[in-house]
């Protein structure tokens, strides 16, 4: 299965099974911290964002028999992730800057430029929404099951005992 991820250029992430019904598992992602001190929140890194994880739950159709509470590795194609990031961030940013710069050149007053930038941002999100509908379907970019995760994968710098003690805190 690791070979599969390598072969298809998949980017991996950890998720925990929240519920399973009729071959469809609902998973809660374990977001990475940007410091990279650990690979997931499973190793005891708690953040104020943790309570928002419920909003990020996603469904996964898999032939594997998964149990509630189990940690798995899911993957998406790297180029899909980049395309998604471009649509979500680059388009609104481009329209925001274009609106701001054009207004600054024409009018030159800061409050008007600020308003034009915000207007450009709103237009950009509209274009991003249309582009996302056009380019992606939910099935196409849905994460795929790769394999079951091991504790030491989540937090390479901590022992299993340390990980368990973090979880029990």
């Amino acid at each position, binding site marked *: 299965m690791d070979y599969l991820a390598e072969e298809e250029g998949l980017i991996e992430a950890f998720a925990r099974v929240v519920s399973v019904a009729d071959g469809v598992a609902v998973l809660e992602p374990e977001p990475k911290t*940007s410091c990279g001190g650990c690979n997931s929140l499973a190793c005891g890194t708690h953040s104020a964002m943790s309570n928002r994880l419920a909003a990020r739950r996603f469904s996964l159709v898999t032939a594997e028999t998964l149990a509630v509470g189990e940690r798995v590795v899911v993957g998406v194609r790297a180029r899909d992730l980049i395309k998604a*990031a471009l649509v979500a961030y680059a388009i609104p940013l481009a329209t925001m800057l274009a609106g701001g710069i054009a207004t600054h050149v024409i009018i030159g007053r800061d409050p008007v430029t600020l308003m034009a930038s915000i207007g450009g941002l709103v237009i950009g999100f509209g274009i991003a929404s249309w582009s996302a509908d056009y380019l992606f379907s939910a099935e196409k970019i849905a994460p795929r099951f790769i394999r079951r995760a091991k504790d030491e994968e989540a937090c390479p710098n901590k022992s299993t005992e340390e990980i368990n003690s973090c979880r029990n805190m």
Partner: protein
Amino acid sequence: MQEYVMLMVGAALVNNVILARFLGLCSFMGVTNRVDSAFGMGLAVIFVMTVSAMLDWSVQYYLLQPFGLDYLRTVIFIIVIAAAVQFTEMTVRKVSPPLFQMLGIYLPLITVNCAVMGVALLVVDAKLGFIASTLFAFASAVGYTLVMVIFAGLRERLLVAEVPPIFSGPPIALITAGLLALAFMGFAGLSAK
């Protein structure tokens, strides 16, 4: 116009956020294992840094300065940045749930990225106008992404290189980062700012 170009070149290359100002070093070491994820995170940082700087500039000049509340700047900026990240997340979720789901799973949280905060403070300290501040923040973020992607590429190559065991892992990564910083010193003198 040339003034803006020089400002952007200076922010992106000469005074690079990571290699010259030493901001965002944790994500520099933590999220540079793969070029794809480094680029994805870079795009998110470009967006958040530009929008945050724009909002922070507005808060500074339309709220804090007129009411003499400059001493609250750091706290208010932290709140503004967190709100900007939250707003972005909510908007992406509304705009396209599949995109939100995908980005939420694979891109790290950037709410507390010190580079975002650092650039917001630099923009205010430099006393730039609105558009100059926005372009400065945008260029700083582009410089951040550029370095992240270059470093991720180097680290991917290091994985298949023969590294003496004592240097393998973070030590060789830090040495590589040092060499990259030296290379970027070659841009010194391109811009006055």
